[in-house]
């Protein structure tokens, strides 16, 4: 431990400075007396004796300094001294300090916030135990939506039996819609959203219930008493955080259902698996009950055995796939999943698509930080010019160059730490606001928070920024010629001129960075506008939807269909008679919500190709739906006469019609009136061909769609879609009253404008676009500030020169245009460099654009003009000031 002794003593000495100094002073005093005495004894007179003793000591102050150096932490001493000095100077210049801290706070705050987003979405593991072992297992993406991304319950069993690399596999029912539960507490039923999961779901993810227990295999068996687990948020909101809720039973969907557990607050199903949606309850999925015959309904989530690599898991899944059966009742369906079982890391599935957007976002805030630093450098240089004499003086008094650079870096560090603290506050506000934006369809957003990593990042960028913006002015100032600086009278001197060149280079780089940001933001903005103007195939404005509860249970399909037809007919008749309703109809899945496929109906009498693409997405609708949602039909819409005993009818979309007609020789290639068959089912007559609708997403291809009448096929539920001249909110009350009137069990479901579905679908794009655009605006402002600072300073410096020019006859407008010209010269160079860099870097952003070239000339030109305009504006103020210089005053000064 002896090696520790000295460092510890040094630290101790640092804190006992006063006492140790006093001790040393006493010792030196004693020394002096002893020496003087001895000198007197040698025959010197007292005055001379003391003088000789002092010379022998070699300077009391030096002795003291060496003592301190030997015993304590000199570096820390100097740092404290510099800090004290810095704080004093900064407090003396509040204007400069506030501007500098604010600029840094914006730059650093934006960086912390974006880092938190990147950290949450990309870097941090998912909020599950050993999340690295979790994989999402799905077929490669295909046209038929969710039905092609899921598996049947038999396939689930087969996969578990035949795979070797997995500790276990779980899954959830992928087709649950919002508000599929209705909780009956006596008054109007309360709608809520639940997800059916395979019973081992929570064990596999490693989620422990906050209260009660998780599901067991018995909970999911046929005939088991109904149970539910509720989310923390719903428990607090709906059950006022009842501590005794476990074991209580409630009427849910008409059955007494026992609450067996409350999930922890950290578990948010929507955040991970269904971004932008809220899930209130989790229920067990009965794998061996009716779902067995529902086809592809569950997603697979697997947990790899420890040490199993992704490649091994993939190979294992490839080997297991041929053993998987769609339904054991149909042996020919075994092997249909061949090549369609591919595990990917769950994290990649959840947020992999966003990687590029986040990288661009990160680059944007990086640019903001650079611009902020350049701005600060500029401010410090301007200040340096004013302080150069101070530093020359310190140099003359013996301060080393390193010591002066150190002092300046300390100043930068103090500024950037202050900026970081304010920035952190800004980031906390921004991040907590973002975490509550439930409507943005981005995964994990609700788990967003400033954590230890974000704090570490803050420290890192604060130091980085301090070095970046402090070094150039520091070296400039410390490197100056002492003599020159002391002589330098200010205006017109060489030192200032050199400063100004540095500052011009800084401003140009700032403008170039801002230009890149603006072009990036411009391209994203243009893409967003293009996305918004996509012809969706339906008209979202003035349409709204509400989930309708109905009961069509009957002993057989035929009776059930008749019962349902009667209910729907009645509801639609009543709703259509409401004032303001233009059209109304029912659909089971709204566009941009869930979807499913039922095979591929093919023209009758034509041999099917061996390799059939996956089938069209299926929508079960009533008459009037297409008119209500605003989709055009060629041929006819369904009507109430298309009953269960009549001819089976369908409508298909243009794309599917085109595909079918490429096999069939239909007159004029027209599908209307033609007949399709679907694997031995009844013949289907195409009564109408419908516009292609963006049902899966706004930006992708439209795919194939087929519509069945709810009067012949059983829908998965009913959304009442209403088109009206009135705003949806004005209709909501009347419609809900009508529904409640017809069915007292109708829950108080949300009346949602169709526009909301669209804005939800484009919300990630809007989110990124808005962030990048606000960063670009920030960059633009900072660049404008930088230009203003440099031009304004140079006008001040040239006051005398301008005065002489004006005295010699230069007009005010001439002076003004000279200043403006020098401003624009900087801006144009910056814009040219920025545009060139953008052209070179555009490929990075191209995958984020929609129907917009990364070299879109319009955007480049527009942004260049905008930037030059702002530059001219920020140069205009100093230019005006220059033109108002009074020659006599200017010449008299100095």
């Amino acid at each position, binding site marked *: 431990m002896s090696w520790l*002794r000295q460092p510890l003593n040094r630290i101790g000495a640092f804190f006992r400075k006063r006492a140790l100094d006093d001790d040393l002073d006493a010792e030196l005093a004693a020394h002096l007396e*002893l020496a003087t005495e001895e000198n007197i004894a040698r025959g010197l007179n007292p005055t001379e004796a003391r003088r000789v003793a002092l010379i*022998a000591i070699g300077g009391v102050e030096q002795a003291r300094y*060496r*003592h301190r150096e*030997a*015993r304590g932490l000199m570096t820390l001493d100097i740092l404290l001294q510099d800090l004290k000095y810095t704080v004093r100077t900064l407090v003396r210049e509040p204007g400069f300090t506030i501007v500098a801290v604010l600029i840094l706070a914006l730059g650093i705050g934006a960086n912390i916030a974006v880092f938190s987003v990147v950290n949450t979405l990309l870097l941090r593991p998912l909020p599950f135990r050993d999340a690295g072992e979790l994989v999402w297992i799905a077929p490669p993406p295909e046209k038929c939506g969710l039905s092609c991304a899921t598996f049947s319950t038999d396939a689930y069993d087969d996969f578990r039996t035949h795979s070797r690399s997995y500790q276990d596999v779980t899954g959830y029912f992928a087709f649950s819609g919002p508000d599929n539960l209705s909780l009956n507490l006596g008054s109007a039923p309360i709608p809520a959203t639940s997800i059916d999961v395979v019973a081992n779901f929570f064990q596999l993810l490693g989620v422990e219930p906050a209260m009660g227990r998780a599901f067991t295999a018995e909970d999911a068996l046929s005939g088991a008493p109904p149970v539910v687990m509720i989310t923390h948020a719903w428990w607090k909101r709906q059950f006022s955080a009842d501590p005794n809720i476990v074991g209580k039973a409630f009427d849910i969907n008409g059955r007494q259902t026992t609450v067996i557990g409350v999930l922890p607050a950290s578990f948010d199903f929507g955040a991970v698996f269904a971004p932008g949606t809220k899930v209130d309850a989790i229920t067990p999925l009965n794998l061996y009950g009716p779902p067995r015959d529902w086809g592809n309904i569950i997603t697979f989530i697997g947990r790899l055995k420890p040490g199993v690599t992704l490649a091994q898991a993939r190979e294992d899944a490839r080997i297991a796939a041929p053993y998987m059966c769609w339904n054991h009742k149909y042996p020919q369906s075994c092997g249909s999943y061949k090549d369609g079982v591919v595990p990917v890391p769950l994290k990649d599935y959840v947020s992999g698509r966003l990687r590029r957007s986040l990288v661009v976002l990160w680059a944007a805030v990086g640019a903001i930080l650079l611009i902020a630093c350049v701005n600060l450098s500029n401010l410090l240089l301007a200040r340096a010019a004013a302080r150069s004499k101070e530093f020359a003086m310190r140099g003359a008094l013996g301060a080393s160059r390193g010591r002066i650079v150190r002092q300046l870096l300390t100043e930068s560090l103090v500024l950037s730490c202050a900026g970081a603290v304010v920035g952190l506050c800004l980031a906390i506000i921004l991040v907590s606001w973002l975490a509550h934006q439930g409507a943005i369809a981005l995964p994990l957003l609700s788990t967003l928070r400033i954590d230890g990593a974000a704090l570490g990042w803050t420290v890192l960028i604060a130091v980085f920024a301090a070095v970046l913006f402090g070094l150039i002015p520091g070296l400039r100032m410390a490197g100056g010629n002492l003599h020159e600086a002391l002589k330098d009278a200010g205006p017109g001197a060489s030192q200032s001129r050199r400063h100004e060149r540095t500052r011009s280079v800084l401003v140009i780089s700032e403008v170039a960075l801002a230009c890149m940001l603006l072009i990036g933001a411009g391209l994203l903005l243009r893409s967003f506008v293009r996305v918004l103007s996509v012809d969706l195939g339906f008209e979202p404005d003035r349409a709204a939807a509400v989930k309708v509860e109905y009961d069509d249970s009957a002993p057989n399909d035929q009776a059930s269909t008749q019962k349902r037809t009667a209910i729907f007919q009645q509801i639609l008749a009543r709703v259509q008679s409401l004032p303001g309703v233009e059209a109304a109809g029912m659909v089971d899945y709204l566009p941009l919500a869930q979807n499913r496929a039922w095979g591929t109906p093919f023209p009758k009498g034509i041999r099917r190709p061996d390799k059939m693409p996956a089938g069209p997405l299926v929508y079960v609708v009533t008459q009037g739906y297409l008119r209500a949602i605003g989709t055009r039909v060629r041929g006819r819409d369904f009507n109430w006469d298309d009953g269960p005993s009549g001819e089976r009818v369908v409508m298909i979309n243009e794309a599917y019609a085109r595909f079918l007609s490429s096999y069939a020789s239909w007159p004029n290639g027209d599908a209307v009136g033609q007949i399709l068959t679907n694997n031995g089912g009844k013949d289907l007559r195409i009564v109408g061909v419908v516009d292609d609708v963006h049902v899966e997403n706004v930006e992708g291809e439209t795919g194939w769609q087929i519509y069945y009448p709810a009067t012949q096929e059983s829908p998965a539920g009913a959304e009442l879609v209403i088109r009206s001249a009135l705003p949806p909110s004005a209709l909501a009350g009347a419609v809900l009253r009508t529904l409640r009137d017809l069915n007292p069990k109708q829950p108080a479901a949300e009346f949602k404008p169709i526009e909301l579905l669209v804005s939800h679908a484009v919300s990630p794009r809007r989110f990124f676009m808005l962030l990048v655009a606000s960063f670009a605006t920030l960059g633009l402002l900072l660049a404008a500030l930088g230009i203003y600072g440099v031009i304004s300073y140079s006008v001040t410096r040239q006051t005398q020169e301008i005065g002489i020019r004006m005295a010699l006859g230069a007009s005010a407008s001439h002076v003004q245009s000279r200043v403006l010209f020098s401003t624009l010269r900087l801006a144009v160079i910056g814009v040219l460099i920025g545009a060139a860099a953008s052209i070179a870097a555009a490929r990075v952003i191209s995958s984020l654009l929609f129907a917009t070239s990364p070299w879109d000339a319009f955007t480049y030109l527009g942004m260049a003009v905008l930037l030059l305009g702002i530059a001219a504006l920020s140069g205009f103020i100093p230019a005006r000031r220059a033109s108002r210089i009074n020659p006599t005053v200017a010449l008299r000064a100095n």
Partner: protein
Amino acid sequence: MQPSKLDLLQGTLDLMVLHTLTVMGSNHGYGIARRIEQISGNEVLLNQGTIYASLVRLEQRGWITSAWGTSGNNRKAKFYSITPAGRRQLADDARYWERLTGVMDRVLGMTAEEADPA
């Protein structure tokens, strides 16, 4: 112009102080400084003030201890004495110093024949 005095090599002052304390027993800073000056025949350039940096360094390392006391002519002064650890260190350092001077002697005493590798 008088011949210039020797500049002290890094660390040698510490060694001198330790040895002085071993030989003289407990002493104050002034006494140690004077003693070194006398022994060296006034050949070393010693600002007496530097002795205190050396003393505090040695004390922090635990090789000497200090206490305020009274000098022979009744003056208050801080007295330093060497610790067992200090004696061990002195032995090590002295051995090192002897080896170093031995090597220096040999190298500087080298003649042209000895330097020839053949």
